[in-house]
């Protein structure tokens, strides 16, 4: 039995169509480029999966399913994906290529907004000054782009995963 599903990758918001086929000990997965075919086998304990690629290499992947996100760790590399409705939202908002929504990594307070809408920012440039765990931190832009929208203001208390700003593509 084959099933189709979609996953959105974060933070780029790209949607990835996936074909899933059930095996006895796991699933055969087919994705579009840059993926391909692989077999994902249940590991020896919860959240542990073994990914066998077409070339035959095997990797251990740890997977945690959150409410609207899936987190995957392979070694020290971490990946985040959205599922279901969240993917559709990301896809809609990200319909322009390179348009991404940046959300707060944890609850805290916006101390200062360092840029204004329409301003060009480069990857790594501080966008917001954010206070969490009694420490002030700069939230840096994940990529080059133009600030399309700022959804928060200085002094505002924010929850984890709350939308902070939207980064549009460079014109």
């Amino acid at each position, binding site marked *: 039995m084959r099933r189709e599903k979609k*996953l959105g*990758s974060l933070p780029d918001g790209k949607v990835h169509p996936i074909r899933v086929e059930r095996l006895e000990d796991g699933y055969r997965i087919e*994705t579009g480029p*840059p*993926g391909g075919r692989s077999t994902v086998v249940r590991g020896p304990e919860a959240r542990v999966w073994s990914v066998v690629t077409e070339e035959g290499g095997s990797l251990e992947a*740890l997977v945690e399913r959150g409410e609207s996100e899936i987190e995957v*760790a392979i070694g020290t590399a971490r*990946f985040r994906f959205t599922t279901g409705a969240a993917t559709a939202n990301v896809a809609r908002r990200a319909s322009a290529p390179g348009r991404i929504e940046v959300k707060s*990594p944890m609850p805290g307070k916006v101390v200062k907004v360092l840029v204004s809408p329409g301003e060009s920012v480069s990857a790594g440039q501080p966008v917001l000054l954010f206070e969490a765990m009694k420490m002030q931190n700069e*939230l840096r832009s994940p990529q080059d782009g133009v600030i399309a929208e700022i959804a928060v203001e200085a002094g505002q208390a924010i929850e984890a995963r709350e939308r902070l700003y939207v980064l549009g593509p460079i014109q």
Partner: protein
Amino acid sequence: MFRKVLIANRGEIACRISRALRDAGIGSVAVYSEADRDGLHVRLSDEAYLIGPAASSQSYLSIPAILEAANKSGAEAIHPGYGFLAENAGFAVACRENGLTFIGPPPSAVALMGDKARARAVALNAGVPVVPGSLPLDSLDDAEREADRIGYPLLVKATAGGGGKGMRRVARREDLSSAFEQARSEAQSSFGDPSVYLEKYVERPRHIEIQVLGDDRGSVVHLFERECSIQRRHQKLIEEAPSPFLDDALRARMGEAAVSLARASGYQNAGTVEFLVDSERNFYFLEMNARLQVEHPVTELVTGVDLVLLQLAIASGEALPFSQAEISRRGWAMELRITAEDPFQNFMPTAGTLAVYRPPEGPGIRHDAGVFQGQRVTPHYDPLIAKLIVSGEDRSQCISRARRAIREYRVLGISTTLPFFERMLSDERFVSGEIDVGFVDRHWMREMASRPAEFPELFPAALAAAAAALEEQERLSDSNGESGSLSPWKLAGVREVMRGRS
């Protein structure tokens, strides 16, 4: 020796102390806040007392709550760990007044080291080099004369200052007058006090510290150095012993300086004297930490001593079991601080549940953790979750083992500093030992972390694993849903029909 000791701390250091108490056959008492009910330190201790709500001001910093727990449990002594009340002279006094032994230096030494100006004066008197500087200056003439004596580059600093306000770096004599005036007016507007002084600017210094131990009979020894130059915003990330920079002559001179300072201040128990070391091998006293340090295991691994056990012995009135000549060191050790912070987001703290937590094992690995799999990492306390301490015959083997350990380390649920260490330990400049306190700022913040972590070669596997896990969950919830929608009566009916068929 004590029969029962209370640990006034949480996290990895409370676990470390609890283990030492069990090693010594001493009863251990943990205290915990409402946020730490199932903390690892609670599980590792013989008994535990709730001392208040999550906010540390009402729990781990509450002297009355901790003294009450000590009283209820019948503990004879309190180990404060580091942070919280460890360098609070008032707490050390309160322990004494309540008939409890404070495991640390005498209150007078805690108070002295907490006052940076007095500590500097004691260092000067003891013949320990401090960063050359002047007294507060009122006129430009005085400033110029003092600046010529100290030498350029130098800093003009506000006497009442802090946070870089009222501070100016001056590279040449002709720039002094404007910097002097600017710093004075900034100091006046920021602190209401225009007073400034001069201090030599130490370029690209290393942070190298000396571990000392003193008993109550006046015997003081040092246990060599730890190099802690890999830090950001004064928070250490990697510590190692020995320092790749020191030779035996300089090591001996710094050790002697640290011992003289400890003697001059009436110091007892474990403490650390921090120095800045410039590229010309001049060293300057920075401050003394009157407590056990986070990075103490590095010293334990190269000297073979157990610092916490020695703290207990000294506090109970025993003499140091060795003289300076009997202390030796062997091999190399390095500590990596695993914190709940995102190194690609300027080390922003992260919170979440440790869905998977599997630390590394094998030759040369010591792992001091304060967390376990399934635990929630809350934003209430310090983000340090564990210390990975690696030892080897030499620095090169130590680094290889650390790299191997990082590859084995599995964490899912929060961001940690592991990717930082993975890249740092492969960086040629780090491996060569050419490090200073600005290293992380210059190389990590400005180049290595300027772009978020991208691992394109692993992306397809990650996507496939996410899809498989999603499918599995949907399949399981589907089958649960089907059986859940049938009442027991209907299920019984289905069984009847099936039975009839066979």
